[in-house]
C-alpha cells in the first residue's frame, strides 16, 4: 500500500515539475508573444474570467522590461499602457496590484499626454475605502500628475497623510517626498502640508513617523531654526523650554526616524562650528545651546536598545568636528561592542569608523588594537584590510616591525584593490615616522618582485616615488631608486618599466652616486622591447647632460645603440649624441643653471627645452590650449604662441585626500567634468560679438547668487575679468508662471572711481521657467588706484502678463516697467587673481626672488586654524599648493603655500604661517613674492 502511495506521490510531483517547466518559461519569454498576450487586456470578458492570466502577462512584461535585450519601444509601450488601463475594470485585487506596479514602469515610456488618461481611474481608487488601493493608487498618481492637477488633488493627499491606516499615511508621505523633489511648483504645494506632516509625526506607527520626519526635513531643509526646534521637540532631551510630559509624548520611537534626527543634529552641530559660533577653546559638549542639546541627545541614543541607532549615535559623536578626546569617550563602549558583533555589517562599519578616528586620536583607538588584530583574519576581506589600516595608524614606531610581518602574510590573501589600500596606508605611516621609511620601502619593494597585478605594482611604485619626493633624505632616495632599478630587471609591465626608467632619469642624476643607475638603465637598452629601449636612451641622455663626469662613459654606451633596429630608438640616440657632442666642449659649466643656458648658444637652448620641466602640468596645458582656441581671432594672430600668452586656466582644486582615504571614487573622472564646465563661462562672452571685441577674458569667477534661491526672479552673476574691463554676466531666471519678462537689464550704481559702467546688453525676453543672460560692462579708469568696491544693483524689466497654458500674451495690456532690488555686488582684489598651480613650489619661490617680497603679520579674528586657513585662501583667491590646503587636525600651527596669477599674467606666490593662540585667536604671518611690487601690495591688501 505504501508503494502505491509513493508512486502516486512521485507522479504527482512529476506533474508539479511539468507545471514548473511552464512557469520557468520566464527564462525565455519573448517580446512578441507577450505583446500578443497583452492584447487580451482589451477583452473584458477574458479578463474577468481569468485575471490570473493577465497577472502572468503583466509579470512577463515587467520581466522583459528588466532583463531582455529587446525592450518595449515607445509605440509598443503606449499600446500596452492603454491595455493596462482597461484592467481597472476588473475587480480582482491582486491583478490591481500588478496593474499599479506595471503602470509605474510603463509611464516612463509613454507620452505624458497619453498617460494622463489613467488619472481618473487612479483618483477613483485613491478615494475608495480600500486602504491598499488608496495607498498604491496615490503612489502611481504622483508620478503622473503635474502641479496643476496636484492642486486639484491636494485635499485627498492631505487626508491620506493623516489617514489612520499606516499604509496609506506612509504612502502619502513618501509620495509627497517624491513630488517635492520632482519640481519646484510641486514643492511649493507640498510645503503647505507642513501641518499635516506634524500631525503624522504623532502616529504610533514607526514607518509613518520615519516618513514624516523625512518629509519635514525636506520641506524645511533651509530653515535652520525650524529643524533645530523639530529635532529638539522629538528627540526627547530635556531643555529649559519643554516640560517632561510633552517630552515623552513627542519623542519618536521609530529607529529609522531617530537615525534621521541624529543626522540632522549632527549637521546642525557641524554648521555651528563651520559658522564660527563655537569658540576654539570651548568643548563642543556645551559650547552653544544646539551643541549641548545635540550632544546630550547623542549620549542618550548610545543607550538605545536597537543597535543601528546606538551605532549611528556613536558615529555622530566620533565625526564631530572637534579634537578633544573626552568628547569621543562615551561612544567607545558602543564601538567596543559592535566591533565584536556577529554581524559583518556591524564589524565593517565599526572598523571603518575607527579607521577614520585613528587619524585624529590614535591613542584612543589603540585601546581597540586587540580586537582589531583579531579582525585581520575576518572572512570579509574589507574588514581585515581596514583593521590593518587602522592598526597602522595607531601603531607606534616600535610596533611597526611586528605589524609589517603580519602584513606580509596578509597581503597574499587579499584582493588587489585591498592591497592598494594597505600600500597607501603604509605610505602614510612613513610620512609619520620618516625614520622607518627605509624599512617600509624595502618591504614594499619585496612585493614588487613577487607576483601581483598591474594596479598593485603601480601603486607601490607611486608610493615609493611620493616618498622620494616627500622625504628629502638622500639615503632614502638612493635606496628607493636602487629597489626600482632591481624591479625593472624583470618587470612584466611595459608601462611601468618606461615610467620607472623615466623616474630614474629624473632623480638618478641627483643621487649620491649616479653611476650606479647607469648600468641598470643601459641593461634595458640591450634586453628590452623597443619602447623601453627608447625610454632608456632618453634616461641615459639626461644622465649624460646632468652629470658631466659620467658623460664620457655614457657616450660609448649611446653610440653602441646607433645600430638599434628600432627607428625611434635610433632617432633618440642620434639626437642625444648631437646634444651631448656639441655640449661636451664646455664640460665645466654648471649644467643645472638653466638661466645661464638661455644666454648661451642655440644648441644649448635645445638642451634646455629637452631637459627642463614644463611650466605647467599637461592637464592644464591642454585646458589652456582649448581655451586659447575659443578666443576670437586668436588662431589668426601673428604673434607666436608661447606659454606667456596662453590664457590662464584655474587649476582644479587639489584633490582633498581624506583621512581614511578609502572607498572613494577615482577623482579623475569627477575633475574632468568640472573642468569642462569651467571653460564655459568665458565662452558665453566670446559668443557675443559686442563683448568679444573687449579682448580676452583673464578670469571668470564662480557664479554668485544675488537673490534668495526661492524668490520670484532668481539672479546669479559671474564676474569676467578682462585687462581693462569687467564684464558682469547676470543669469536671470523667471519663476512666475503667468509672466514674461522683456528687456531685462541690471542697473548698477557705484561710487568707486576706478571703474565705471560703460555699457550693457539686455536680455530680450525671458519666459516662464527659462533663464537668460544680460550683461553689464565696467571700464577701468587707470588713473585711479584700485580698491575693492561694492555695486548697488537693481533688476529692471518690463512685465507682460501671459496665459500660463499657452505662454501667449493676454491681449492688449499696459507694459509694466518694474524694478526688483538685488543684493549688492562686490568686486574684490581676489577677483583679479587666478588660481594657478606651480609644479614645484619651492623652486618657484626661490626663482622668483625676494626683490618684490612683502612680509606682514596679522592677528585674525578666526577662532580655529581650520577656519583661519579657509578664510585666508578665500581672501587671497589663490591656489593651495603641495597639499597645504589640508590641515592636520589638532595641529597648533599650519604652513600654507599659495600660488596664483594676477591680472596681466603676473605670477604671485605666498607663504603663510598660521598659528593658533588661546588669547588672541590666530596669528598669520604672510610673505608674498611676485614679479611686481605693486601686485604684491595689492594682494596683501585683500586681507
Amino acid at each position, binding site marked *: 500500500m505504501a508503494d502505491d502511495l509513493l508512486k502516486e506521490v512521485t507522479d504527482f510531483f512529476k506533474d508539479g515539475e511539468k507545471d514548473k517547466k511552464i512557469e520557468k518559461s520566464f527564462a525565455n519569454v519573448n517580446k512578441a508573444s507577450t505583446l500578443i498576450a497583452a492584447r487580451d487586456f482589451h477583452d473584458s470578458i477574458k479578463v474577468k474570467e481569468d485575471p490570473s492570466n493577465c497577472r502572468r502577462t503583466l509579470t512577463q512584461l515587467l520581466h522583459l522590461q528588466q532583463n531582455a535585450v529587446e525592450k518595449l519601444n515607445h509605440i509598443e509601450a503606449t499600446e500596452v499602457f492603454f491595455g493596462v488601463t482597461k484592467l481597472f475594470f476588473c475587480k480582482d*485585487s491582486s491583478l490591481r496590484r500588478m496593474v499599479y506596479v506595471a503602470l509605474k514602469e510603463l509611464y516612463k515610456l509613454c507620452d505624458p499626454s497619453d498617460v494622463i488618461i489613467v488619472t481618473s481611474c487612479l483618483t477613483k481608487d485613491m478615494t475608495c475605502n480600500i486602504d491598499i488601493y488608496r495607498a498604491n493608487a496615490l503612489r502611481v498618481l504622483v508620478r503622473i500628475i503635474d502641479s496643476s492637477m496636484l492642486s486639484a488633488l491636494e485635499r485627498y493627499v492631505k487626508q491620506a497623510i493623516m489617514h489612520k491606516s499606516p499604509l496609506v499615511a506612509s504612502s502619502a508621505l*513618501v509620495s509627497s517626498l517624491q513630488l517635492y523633489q520632482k519640481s519646484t511648483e510641486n514643492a511649493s504645494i507640498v510645503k503647505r502640508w507642513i501641518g499635516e506632516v506634524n500631525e503624522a509625526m504623532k502616529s504610533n506607527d514607526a514607518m509613518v513617523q520615519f516618513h514624516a520626519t523625512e518629509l519635514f*526635513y525636506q520641506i524645511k531643509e533651509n530653515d535652520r531654526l525650524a529643524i533645530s526646534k523639530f529635532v529638539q521637540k522629538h528627540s526627547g532631551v530635556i531643555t529649559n523650554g519643554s516640560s517632561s510630559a510633552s517630552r515623552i509624548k513627542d519623542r519618536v520611537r521609530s529607529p*529609522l526616524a531617530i537615525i534621521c534626527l541624529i*543626522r*540632522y543634529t*549632527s549637521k546642525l552641530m557641524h554648521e555651528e562650528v563651520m559658522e564660527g559660533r563655537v569658540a576654539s577653546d570651548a568643548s563642543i559638549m556645551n559650547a552653544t545651546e544646539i551643541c549641548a542639546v545635540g550632544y546630550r541627545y547623542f549620549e542618550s541614543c548610545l543607550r538605545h536598545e536597537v543597535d543601528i541607532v546606538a551605532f549611528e549615535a556613536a558615529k555622530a559623536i566620533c565625526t564631530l568636528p572637534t579634537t578633544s578626546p573626552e568628547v569621543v569617550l562615551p561612544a567607545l563602549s558602543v564601538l567596543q561592542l559592535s566591533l565584536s558583533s556577529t554581524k559583518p555589517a556591524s564589524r565593517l562599519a565599526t572598523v571603518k569608523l575607527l579607521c577614520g578616528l585613528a587619524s585624529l586620536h590614535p591613542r584612543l583607538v589603540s585601546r581597540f588594537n586587540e580586537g582589531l588584530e583579531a579582525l585581520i583574519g575576518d*572572512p570579509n576581506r574589507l574588514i581585515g584590510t581596514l583593521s590593518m589600516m587602522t592598526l597602522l595608524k595607531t601603531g607606534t614606531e616600535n610596533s611597526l616591525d611586528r605589524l609589517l610581518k603580519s602584513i606580509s602574510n596578509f597581503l597574499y590573501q587579499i584582493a588587489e584593490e585591498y592591497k592598494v589600500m594597505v600600500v597607501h596606508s603604509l605610505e602614510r605611516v612613513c610620512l609619520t615616522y620618516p625614520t622607518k621609511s627605509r624599512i617600509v620601502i624595502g618591504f614594499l619593494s619585496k612585493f614588487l618582485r613577487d607576483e601581483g597585478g598591474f594596479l598593485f605594482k603601480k601603486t607601490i611604485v607611486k608610493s615609493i616615488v611620493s616618498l622620494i619626493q616627500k622625504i628629502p633624505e638622500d639615503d632614502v632616495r638612493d635606496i628607493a631608486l636602487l629597489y626600482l632599478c632591481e624591479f625593472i630587471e624583470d618587470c612584466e609591465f611595459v608601462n611601468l618599466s618606461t615610467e620607472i626608467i623615466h623616474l630614474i632619469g629624473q632623480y638618478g642624476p641627483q643621487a649620491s652616486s649616479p653611476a650606479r643607475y647607469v648600468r641598470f638603465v643601459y641593461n634595458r637598452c640591450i634586453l628590452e622591447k623597443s619602447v623601453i629601449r627608447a625610454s632608456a636612451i632618453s634616461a641615459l641622455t639626461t644622465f649624460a647632460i646632468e652629470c658631466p663626469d659620467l658623460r664620457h662613459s655614457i657616450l660609448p654606451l649611446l653610440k653602441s645603440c646607433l645600430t638599434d633596429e628600432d627607428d625611434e630608438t635610433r632617432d633618440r640616440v642620434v639626437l642625444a649624441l648631437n646634444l651631448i657632442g656639441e655640449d661636451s666642449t664646455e664640460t665645466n659649466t654648471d649644467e643645472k643653471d638653466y638661466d645661464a643656458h638661455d644666454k648661451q648658444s642655440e644648441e644649448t637652448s635645445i638642451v634646455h627645452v629637452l631637459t627642463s620641466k614644463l611650466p605647467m602640468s599637461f592637464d592644464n596645458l591642454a585646458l589652456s590650449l582649448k581655451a586659447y582656441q575659443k578666443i576670437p581671432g586668436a588662431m589668426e594672430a601673428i604673434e607666436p604662441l608661447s606659454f606667456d600668452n596662453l590664457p590662464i586656466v584655474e587649476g582644479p582644486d587639489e584633490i582633498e585626500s581624506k583621512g581614511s582615504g578609502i572607498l572613494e571614487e577615482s577623482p579623475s*573622472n569627477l575633475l574632468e567634468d568640472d573642468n569642462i564646465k569651467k571653460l564655459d563661462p568665458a565662452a558665453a562672452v566670446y559668443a557675443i560679438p559686442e563683448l568679444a571685441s573687449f579682448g580676452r577674458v583673464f578670469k571668470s569667477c564662480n557664479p554668485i547668487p544675488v537673490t534668495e534661491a526661492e524668490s520670484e526672479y532668481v539672479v546669479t552673476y559671474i564676474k569676467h575679468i578682462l585687462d581693462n574691463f569687467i564684464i558682469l554676466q547676470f543669469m536671470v531666471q523667471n519663476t512666475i508662471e503667468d509672466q514674461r519678462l522683456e528687456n531685462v537689464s541690471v542697473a548698477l550704481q557705484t561710487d568707486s572711481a576706478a571703474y565705471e559702467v560703460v555699457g550693457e546688453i539686455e536680455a530680450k525676453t525671458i519666459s516662464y521657467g527659462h533663464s537668460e543672460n544680460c550683461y553689464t560692462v565696467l571700464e577701468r579708469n587707470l588713473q585711479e588706484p584700485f580698491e575693492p568696491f561694492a555695486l548697488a544693483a537693481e533688476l529692471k524689466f518690463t512685465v507682460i502678463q501671459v496665459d500660463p497654458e499657452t505662454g501667449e500674451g493676454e491681449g492688449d495690456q499696459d507694459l509694466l516697467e518694474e524694478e526688483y532690488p538685488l543684493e549688492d555686488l562686490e568686486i574684490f582684489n581676489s577677483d583679479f587673481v587666478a588660481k594657478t598651480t606651480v609644479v614645484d613650489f619651492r623652486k618657484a619661490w626661490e626663482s622668483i626672488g625676494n626683490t618684490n617680497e612683502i612680509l606682514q603679520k596679522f592677528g585674525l579674528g578666526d577662532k580655529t586654524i581650520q577656519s583661519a586657513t579657509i578664510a585666508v585662501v578665500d581672501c587671497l583667491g589663490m591656489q593651495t599648493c603641495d597639499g597645504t590646503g589640508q590641515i592636520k587636525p589638532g595641529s597648533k600651527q599650519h604652513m600654507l603655500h599659495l600660488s596664483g596669477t594676477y591680472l596681466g599674467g603676473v605670477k604671485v606666490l605666498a607663504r603663510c604661517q598660521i598659528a593658533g593662540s588661546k588669547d588672541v585667536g590666530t596669528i598669520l604671518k604672510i610673505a608674498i613674492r611676485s614679479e611686481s611690487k605693486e601686485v604684491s601690495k595689492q594682494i596683501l591688501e585683500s586681507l
Partner: protein
Amino acid sequence: MAFTSVIPPLLPKVDAILVLDGEGNRLAGKYYGDFLTSTTSSSSRAAMSTGDDSKPASANVTVEDLRASFERQLQAKIQGIAARSDAAEVVTVMGKTAVFCGGMAMGASPSGVGGDVRVVHVGPNTESELLLAYLCEGMYDALSNLMGGQTDRNMVLDNLELVFLLIDEHCDGGVILEVDGAKLSSSVLLRDDEDMVADAGAGESAPQGAAPSTTGMRGMGNGFGMQGGDISIAQAFRQAKQQLIAGLQADGM
C-alpha cells in the same frame, strides 16, 4: 564643505535593489534615482572603464550595459559568500556600498537550507552599512517567507510576481517604505486585515457576491502563484509532502 563627507545622507535612500541568482543573473531588480542612468556620469564611466575592457567606452553604451557591468563587478565580489538572513555581508563596488543576504557558499551542497538567490541593496558609500544591512535583512526575510524558505532560482522565477510586488512594497523611488519582513510578506499576499474586511464587505454588497471568481481574494486559486492568497503551490506541495511522509512513517511503524 567638510561635513558633506562625514555626515551620512540626510534623506536615506537606496540606489538599487537587486535579486540575483547564484551566477549573478538579475532575476528582478530596480535602480533608483540617477544611479547608472546617464551614460556620461562619472560613476557610469567608472563602470565601463573598469568593467569590460573589450567594449569601447563610447557613446553607444546603453544604460543596460552599465548595469550589466555593475552587476558583473558585484558578482565577482560576492560569489561564493553566503550571508545568513540575520547577518548581511558588505562589499564595496564602484564606490558604492552593496549589502547582501543569502547566497550559497563555495562548495556547499545545493540542497542546503535556503537557496542560492541573493538580495542586494546598493547604497551610497556614506550610508551606514548597518542601516543598509537592516533593510536588506528585512527584505530577505520577506522573500524567504514568500518562497516558503526555499530561495533558489527556480522558486523565485516561478513566483516572480510576488518578487515584483515585494520590491514595490519595500521601496518607492529609493525611499524605504517598509522594512519588517512579516509585514512585507503579508502585504504582498494582501493579508492586510482591514483590507480583508473591506474586501469581504464589498463582496457581500456586490450583486454577484456569490460568484467567487469576481471577489479578489477567492479568485486567485486558479494556478499562478498562490492559493487563497496564502501559500504558493510549492508551499502546498511541501506541506503535502511532509504530511505524506509523516503518514508513511506512521504507516511503516
